């Protein structure tokens, strides 16, 4: 009799603990169904961008990022190339943003040919105050880029406020405007 009770107790414990384990797993699965699976990269947001340097697209100058990001303004870093279709699509937004007093746009020309890049700017307009040349792609990787086009909004302390993968559109444009108007 006593032995029977002991076995039952042991079984009950096992049953309950298995049930609890299963229940916890079920909750985790249920919750993960609700969360979005698109990984929004936030690795650099809130952090300071690293310093970088390269040749300028225009003159035979050597540009250094510490010397560029000195004004008390917001800066938009935009990675682009003449051969990139979506870059062409987003360009009008950049041109519009370049007219904003609070913002200066710095371009990074990614794996491009100088002539093609200049011709692109001639045709579409040049929103960039400065353009760094990223000949082999390493500069963009240093900024944690996924591909092009990609745009980073930094404040005057070089902290990344926003990151956009893919071309700008009206929503992203609005987000940028809001950010530079609202942030103290």
């Amino acid at each position, binding site marked *: 009799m006593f032995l029977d009770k002991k076995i039952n107790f042991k079984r009950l414990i096992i049953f309950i603990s298995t049930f609890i384990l299963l229940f916890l797993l079920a909750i985790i699965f249920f919750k993960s169904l609700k969360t979005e699976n698109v990984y929004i990269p936030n*690795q650099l947001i809130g952090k300071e961008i690293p310093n970088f340097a390269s040749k300028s697209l225009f003159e035979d100058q050597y540009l250094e990022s510490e010397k560029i990001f000195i004004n008390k303004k917001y800066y938009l870093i935009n990675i682009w190339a003449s051969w990139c279709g979506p870059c062409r699509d987003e360009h009008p937004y950049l041109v519009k943003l370049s007219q904003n007093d609070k913002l200066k746009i710095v371009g990074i020309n990614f794996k491009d040919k100088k002539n093609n890049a200049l011709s692109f700017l001639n045709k579409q307009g040049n929103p960039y105050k400065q353009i760094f040349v990223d000949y082999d792609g390493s500069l963009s*990787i240093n900024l*944690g880029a996924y591909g092009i086009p990609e745009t980073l909004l930094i404040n005057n302390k070089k902290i990344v406020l926003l990151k956009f993968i893919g071309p700008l559109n009206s929503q992203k444009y609005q987000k940028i405007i809001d950010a530079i108007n609202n942030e103290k």
Partner: protein
Amino acid sequence: MKNKLFILILIGLFFSINSSYSKEDHLDELKKISKNIRCLICQGQSIDDSNSDFAINIKYVILKKLNEGSSEDEIYDFLKSKYGDWIVYKPEFKLYNLLLWLIPYFIFFIGGILIYQKIFKKNEKTY
């Protein structure tokens, strides 16, 4: 039983030399690292497997860093600082990953105990 032991010792003695790949050849290291880095714009491929622009780009940067003398860990740290922990396939030995690495061995241990009980717990009815 004795024979088995003898053979096991033989194996141990025979294979007491370890091999390692040549460190001059950065391409081998590149491959090894690439297999451990996730291609972030592909669904579930390493940058070794992928031919996307992103993968080619990252491979180039890794090779550049290897040629500059960076170690494997330094490269992983660099990529993690830019893209997050999840770009590296091998989960780190951090505290929150402890369970991950330990649970399989724990289960193996439990299994061992169960089998031990089955074999060595003597019972009258062994037939």
